[in-house]
């Protein structure tokens, strides 16, 4: 069974149709690269997957559970959406780290807030002493997990630094660790290197490459064609709100079928 099934997603802003029936599926452990020129709807698609936009039409299914179905209003409630979000992680183009928190605090904030809610539930059920014990155990786990993630992105020396003290590449690596801290089923990257100086893209791409394993599923919107070719298991080429072409990196990059894709590749690889 596919881990993700996207079915006929449509999204308009006013009279502009940004997505016009996007459907694809993804297997667990796969890396999907989405390429295409600006304005083709790549970012909007990613935002729909993370519930930052609500599709007008279509459904999203993860592990057989339908998370959102534009036709079924009960899947659109705020608390429902909040729970569904946890299936997805998102790394933004502009990092969006929380400037007032250190690296470690950035990575642990969301898990700690989640823990607060769980502790409240435990306290209600089995009393204060139990809740305190529960909190102490889980909090230690959260910090341990965070330190592991920070090590994995190579920033152990910077755990207590503030985002403004880091380079763009380092900030983006923290953002990756922060997204991983919530252990999402599918991690999405929205042009993770587009806001970086060219000499800093390498370190971020290396981290993403290092995340690839049999149980990490990733969707990467990118302009880095070499990266897409080297890391992705499948590539989607989007143009004008539809999936123009989909296939293995070899099919997309070596044997493009549609003229739009050929033109796009010629341009992208020329630069």
């Amino acid at each position, binding site marked *: 069974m596919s881990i993700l099934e996207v079915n006929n997603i449509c999204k308009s802003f006013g009279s502009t149709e940004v997505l016009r029936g996007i459907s694809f599926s993804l297997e667990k452990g796969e890396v999907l690269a989405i390429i295409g020129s600006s304005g083709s709807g790549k970012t909007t698609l990613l935002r729909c997957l993370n519930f930052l936009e609500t599709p007008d039409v279509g459904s999203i299914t993860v592990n057989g559970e339908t998370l959102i179905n534009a036709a079924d209003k009960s899947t659109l409630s705020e608390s429902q959406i909040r729970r569904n*979000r946890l299936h997805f992680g998102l790394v933004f183009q502009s990092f*969006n780290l*929380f400037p007032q928190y250190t690296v470690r605090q950035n990575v642990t904030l969301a898990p700690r807030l989640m823990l607060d809610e769980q502790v409240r539930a435990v306290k209600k059920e089995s009393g204060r002493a139990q809740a305190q014990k529960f909190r102490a155990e889980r909090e230690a786990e959260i910090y341990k997990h965070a330190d592991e993630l920070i090590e994995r992105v190579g920033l152990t020396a910077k755990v207590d630094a503030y985002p403004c003290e880091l380079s763009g590449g380092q900030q983006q690596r923290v953002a990756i660790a922060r997204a991983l801290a919530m252990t999402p089923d599918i991690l999405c990257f929205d042009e993770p290197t587009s806001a970086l100086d060219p000499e800093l893209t390498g370190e971020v791409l290396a981290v993403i490459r290092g995340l690839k394993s049999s149980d990490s599923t990733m969707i990467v919107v990118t302009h880095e064609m070499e990266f897409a070719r080297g890391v992705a298991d499948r590539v989607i080429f989007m143009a004008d709100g539809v999936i123009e072409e989909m296939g293995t990196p070899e099919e997309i990059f070596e044997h493009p079928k549609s003229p739009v894709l050929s033109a796009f590749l010629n341009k992208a690889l020329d630069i």
Partner: protein
Amino acid sequence: MSFWEITFYLAQGFGVTLLLFVLTLLFALPLGLVFAFGAMTKFKPLRWLTRGFVYIIRGTPLLLQLMIVVYLPGLAFNYPLPKWGIFGGNTDAAYFFGALVGFVINYACYFSEIYRGGIENIPRGQYEAGQVLGMTRSQVFFKVILKQVFKNVLAPISNEVVTLVKDTALARSISVLEIFFCAEQVLSREMIIWPLFYTGAFYLIFNSLLTFLFGKMEKRMARYR
């Protein structure tokens, strides 16, 4: 009256000044946030009501507002100020309360505009980053946004706070015996004019202290962006 007698008398008046200052901040700072939310809400009638109110308060003199608070209930509704007794030398508690209401509303309106600017300045990406990590709306606001707003507004707020220290002298117009009124009384009773200028030292010393404290806070928050 000797120098020390006058100093003591003025200090007593400055106590009333400080009480008005502290209580105004205590209520106006949170109330300003409420007004800011009102001015930003998606519910249009409430939004325009709040914005209209803030517009009127910011566009008219505080002195006039104080008079309205104190005299309007008696004139318009035949409900004169109650007798609550005397404190701090010779200040009528009811008039002090009236002054407090006027100051709180006035300053809350100014604060609300500062907060609104501070909140609207936070990039949308900060909300989205919180949301995709599974935080609730209130968690995003209180754990992610508010501290950044606080940093954004600290300088303009400190400006208003320093102004408030001096504005308290307006309470004199509705018979609150704060330091400036005390000095005027010395002038009219004893025919000594220098205490009037002496009050400036009290304001200046207190504002220096505030400026120092705000400087410390700004420095502490300078670590991040």
